[in-house]
């Protein structure tokens, strides 16, 4: 039997949306308040969904301790209470929540081998959320 397990985590970070490919006026027009040179912050909610057969001996898709350990070490400790614009992955890439969502998906896909990664969902505020499934159509 295949099940899908989702786990939610919190982290806080600041960012400024600014593209080097645009003029100052274009940046202001495109990003509005998010283009403020001093940046601003969010409390992000990260939701990670993994799937796989339920192991009959443990009743689990994967051990939650492994998933929590990986996410804390590779994602939360990297982004929590940081300015995203200062990190190398956002040196040339605008740290929109779309790009952050894809980046986190790629970190998990590269390093987390205990279950199949289905989806990364990132809530920037209670009103905005983004989902990335590695280019596969998302499941309803």
């Amino acid at each position, binding site marked *: 039997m295949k*099940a*899908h397990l*989702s*786990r*939610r985590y919190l982290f806080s970070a600041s960012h400024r949306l600014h593209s080097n490919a645009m003029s100052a006026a274009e940046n202001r027009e495109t990003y509005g308040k998010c283009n403020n040179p001093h940046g601003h912050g969010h409390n992000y909610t990260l939701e990670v969904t993994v799937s796989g057969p339920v192991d009959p001996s*443990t*009743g689990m898709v994967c051990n939650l301790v492994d998933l929590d350990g990986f996410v804390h070490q590779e994602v939360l400790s990297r982004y929590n209470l940081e300015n995203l614009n200062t990190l190398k992955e956002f040196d040339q890439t605008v740290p929109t929540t779309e790009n952050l969502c894809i980046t986190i998906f790629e970190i998990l896909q590269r390093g987390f081998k205990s279950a199949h990664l289905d989806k990364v969902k990132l809530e920037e505020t209670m009103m905005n959320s983004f989902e990335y499934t590695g280019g596969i159509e998302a499941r309803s």
Partner: protein
Amino acid sequence: MVYLTRKAEFSASHYYHNPDFTPEENARLFGKCNNPNGHGHNYTLEVTVKGEVDPRSGFVVDLKKLKEVMHREVLDAMDHRFLNKEVPEFYKQIPTTENLAIAIWQRLESKLQQAHLHRVRVYETPDLFVDFYGEK
């Protein structure tokens, strides 16, 4: 096709233990969840059914009937129970959230008449949940 989701809440206790493992293995794998006296959660169940809208009633499914089935098949059996000791599926199986979602699917699937079961989602806590779509 329209998808309809009905929520319910129930509270139950459980513990994780595999008698084939040594006490040390059980402790290592399951940590605090291995305490044989159990511990509890407030579970939230979401049942999603899918179907075409009936042109006469405007319903995918009669919500009253869906609610009755969920109460009879799931809540009456699991609410305020010790899952390992009082729910037959978990006399042998470990009552993880994964197995709970599968057991609830199996209890509901044959009892729903008008609509097809699409998904069973079980929240063990607000930050941990499992989806089961009936996949083998």
